């Protein structure tokens, strides 16, 4: 009795290998998608773009208006009259009645503070 050990058709072998080769030839990998999230915060704030400038002479007074910028639509304006010290720095407000009794400098300034309304 004989026992077949190999029974291979060349055609079948070639067909199988060609089919296997087609598998390798297919696109290997699809695109990959990854994401980066970017966050940032802009705090509400105001700043003076141009300070008010007043030049007074005997002939005339020139006023250059101040310009304040706020990065949100609801600014708040606070004004105070403050004394100017001998070195030119602003000192405490002169609005309080108690302060009226204190020595009073003839030089004063109108301080305008612009802040965002939160």
């Amino acid at each position, binding site marked *: 009795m004989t*026992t077949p050990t190999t*029974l291979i058709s060349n055609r079948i072998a070639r067909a199988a290998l060609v089919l296997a080769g087609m598998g390798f030839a297919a696109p290997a990998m699809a695109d990959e998608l990854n994401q*980066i999230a970017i966050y940032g915060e802009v705090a509400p704030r105001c700043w003076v773009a141009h300070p008010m400038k007043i030049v007074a002479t005997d002939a005339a007074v020139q006023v250059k208006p101040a310009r304040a910028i706020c990065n949100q639509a609801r600014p708040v304006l606070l004004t105070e009259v403050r004394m100017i010290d001998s070195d030119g720095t602003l000192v405490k407000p002169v609005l309080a009645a108690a302060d009226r009794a204190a020595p009073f400098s003839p030089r004063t300034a109108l301080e305008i503070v612009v802040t965002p309304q939160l």
Partner: protein
Amino acid sequence: MGFLRTLILLALAVISVIASQHAHAQVTAYAVGQGAVNSVEVGVEVRASVLGRCGFATGGAPTGTIDQADFDQSGFTKDFAIQLNCTGASRIAVSSANGGMANAATGSTGYQTKAPYNVALYVAADNGTNASATCAAATLAAGGNCTFAGTAGTATGLRLAGASTKANGSYLRVSAPAYAGTDTLAAGRYTDTLSITVSVSP
């Protein structure tokens, strides 16, 4: 009964003919001592091709978050490391959801609700070559004209000519200087999302 026998014999004959036809294309080998033919030589034609495999290495995808307070005053910069796993040339592309950092608030005259920033790509290959480019986020939105805008494809994206399978120092950098636009940047929360894709390149 006789008809049935005739029918069976006819069927066997047909099967025999078919089998004999197939036998012409086959060679049977037998164990040693069991037959004359003990081996069969078969010519095997092997054809296979492997296209470039390309993607991000495990843990090498550029993902993450940056959250910068008061970026309009301080600006920001952050690098996101990239490690590719591409056996051949590749392309990497980036798209921006908003074309800048956008604020959900409604803008008005004199105010800006989209903050500009830049995206830089630097990719390096195993052989020491590299490719790099920088674009404004505005040019990474749909239809943008940045060289690496869009979704990576065979002709879209920044092309790296060499294979890149190691940590070669590749990165994506997002950055912005302090805001210097004419219109005031409105207060609030700003966001954008970058999508990064990679693809094989012929």
